[in-house]
């Protein structure tokens, strides 16, 4: 059974007299553990699709089955619970809370989990998530004290802290330089391979899309191509990470 199943999904916005059709009937199945890269020109409906996949928005027409459950018509609070438990978001702009330490940022999803974990356990899990991304040294730093790559890793830790089955990333490398982008992509690749998490990623750049196991191209609210891909190999990952740490620290200083 696919993790994600979109059935003739449509989304349109009424703008005054005319209607904008952001999605014009998208059908798509994504299996567990896939790393799907979605590409397409600006305004093609990628983000709109991502919002629906992330239960942030509801389709105008069609059905969205997440883990076999139809979530197209759930209430706001029910969708909030699904986002909290099953989905981790990574944004282009990192979206960390300012003047809030890294570990507190990572804890935020846990504040909205039901039942609420005790404070000590929340802290523990946030620290573990940071640790798994090599950020344990930065737990008490504010976002302004972190480099872009580090901020995005904090955001990934936040997406992982509630152990979701799906990670949605809308242009996660959009604000990063090439080197840091590669680092983040390898991180995501690593997550998929070690934890078996399904990842859906939006990007403009073909080199970034090349990390996916499947590449989908969207144009004018429709899927125009859907091909399997052999992901860019993960060579020298360990080496690179070791190198990048001091480099980032230097950039920070």
């Amino acid at each position: 059974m696919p993790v994600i199943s979109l059935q003739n999904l449509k989304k349109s916005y009424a703008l005054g007299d005319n209607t904008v059709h952001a999605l014009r009937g998208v059908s798509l199945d994504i299996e567990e553990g896939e790393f799907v890269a979605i590409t397409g020109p600006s305004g093609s409906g990628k983000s709109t699709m991502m919002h629906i996949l992330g239960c942030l928005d509801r389709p105008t027409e069609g059905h969205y089955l997440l883990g076999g459950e139809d979530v197209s018509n759930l209430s706001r609070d029910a969708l909030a619970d699904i986002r909290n438990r099953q989905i981790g978001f990574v944004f282009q702009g990192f979206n960390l809370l300012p003047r809030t330490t890294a570990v507190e940022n990572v804890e935020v999803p846990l504040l909205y989990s039901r039942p609420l974990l005790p404070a000590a356990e929340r802290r523990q899990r946030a620290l573990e998530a940071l640790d798994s991304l090599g950020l344990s040294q930065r737990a008490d730093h504010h976002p302004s004290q972190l480099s872009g790559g580090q901020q995005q890793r904090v955001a990934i830790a936040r997406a992982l802290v509630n152990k979701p089955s799906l990670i949605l990333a809308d242009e996660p490398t959009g604000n990063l330089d090439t080197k840091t982008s590669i680092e983040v992509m390898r991180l995501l690749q690593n997550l998929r391979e070690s934890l078996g998490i399904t990842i859906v990623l939006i990007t403009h750049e073909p080199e970034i899309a090349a990390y996916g196991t499947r590449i989908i191209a969207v144009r004018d609210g429709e899927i125009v191509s859907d091909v399997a891909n052999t992901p860019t190999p993960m060579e020298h990952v360990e080496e690179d990470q070791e190198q990048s740490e001091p480099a980032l620290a230097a950039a920070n200083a």
Partner: protein
Amino acid sequence: MLINLHTATRALRQNRLQAALTLCGMSIGVAMVVIVSGLGRGAQLQIESQIESAGPTLISVRSGNFSTAAVTGNGEQDSSGGEVSQGPVDPFGLQTDPISDAAPVTPVTVRKTRHRSPAWPLTQAEVDAIASQVEDVRSVAASVAGNVSLDEQPQLRIRVARVHGFQTDWEVMSGWKVLRGRMVTAQEHAAGTPVMLVSPAVAQRLWPDQDPLLQQLSFAGQDVAVVGVVDIEDESSSIVVPTVHVPMTLAQQLLDGQSFDEINVRSRSVATTSGVAQAIRRVLREQRQLADDTFDDFRVTTQSTSSMPSLGTDPRLSRAVHANLVELEKVSWEEMAASLRQAGRTFTLLLTGAAAVSLLVGGIGVMNIMLVSVVARTREIGLRLALGARMQDIMLQFIAEAVTLAVAGGCLGLVLGYLGLLVAQQSFHWAAVLEPAMVMAALVMAMLTGIVFGYGPARRAARLDPVVALKAE
């Protein structure tokens, strides 16, 4: 909830200037409430105390019954007085009006004995009986006085002093105020410590131009030291034979006796005075085992009856007035008290209205900063929604923020209000009272203001569309 508080304080710290301004607005509102209710309450208490101090709540019990008009303190005739021997006397003083009633009533002969009922001294047993058996009694205290010869002292020309012994509370009932030194303490009352109080006039007469607090008098070898100069209205005779006021136990020892001259009773309120006077009379009659057909051998007088001139007036008029005095004083006092209280309440209500308006202004300030905050933090709200916050989570977060702000302003306002009351008291001599309940009420009001004015912005935040909020700048 704690998490929300934490988030709230952080959010407010990030927005310092605005938060500080809102805090000011809020604190002024709460300060107004505190000042107004403090002044209102002060005025009310002052009115109460004026009613109390002016109103007849003091009842005096003396032994013996020498009153001219043979009426008891509550207007009942007991015909034990001895001046009237002729003329029509209404034996049922309560039932008929002796003045307007034209029909002459049967003349009765009243014996001329002034000491119809001989003085039977008052004792501690009676004080205890009044304290324990009569309801609505606030305090009871006895006093005794007598002349005691002084041991020879070099500078003193006086050979004898009037020693006035009093029990605890007597000074309160008599309204004594310490001018210098201190009152006699409860321990000194209990132990009969040789200490005394004097009036300024007596001090001046005994020790002209000297510090009275350093002086003492010696009675039968016992030195009694002055501990306080108290503004007591001594009778004029006390200048000739100077009166000193000492603990009861000491006075009894010096006077070599156990009895009292007078017992003073303070009733709980003006309205209960006449009832208490009646009850005292009943209790004392029981205590003294007086048969129904005998007269009181004591007098129970209230302030109003004692202020009525009885000597030199027509006894019939006197009796008529006395007979109606109880009801008269009750009605007029109660009415006056009621109208004064009403005035006090109206005053408080008006001021409270003004305070409520300023609290409203403070609340609008809170609402304003919260609306600004919601707009400024739309992206954060979007993020929180994306991470799984339900509507109520966002609501709570913003209400907690508003309440934190309002209560912090409230605390500041309490301090400001307290200072305001101090100023009012010190500089303008206005009566101001700050009670714990008022502090609580002000804080609760601040909290409610936070909730009421935070609700709208919080609701607006919670209802944001996550997608739109995430895209916000």
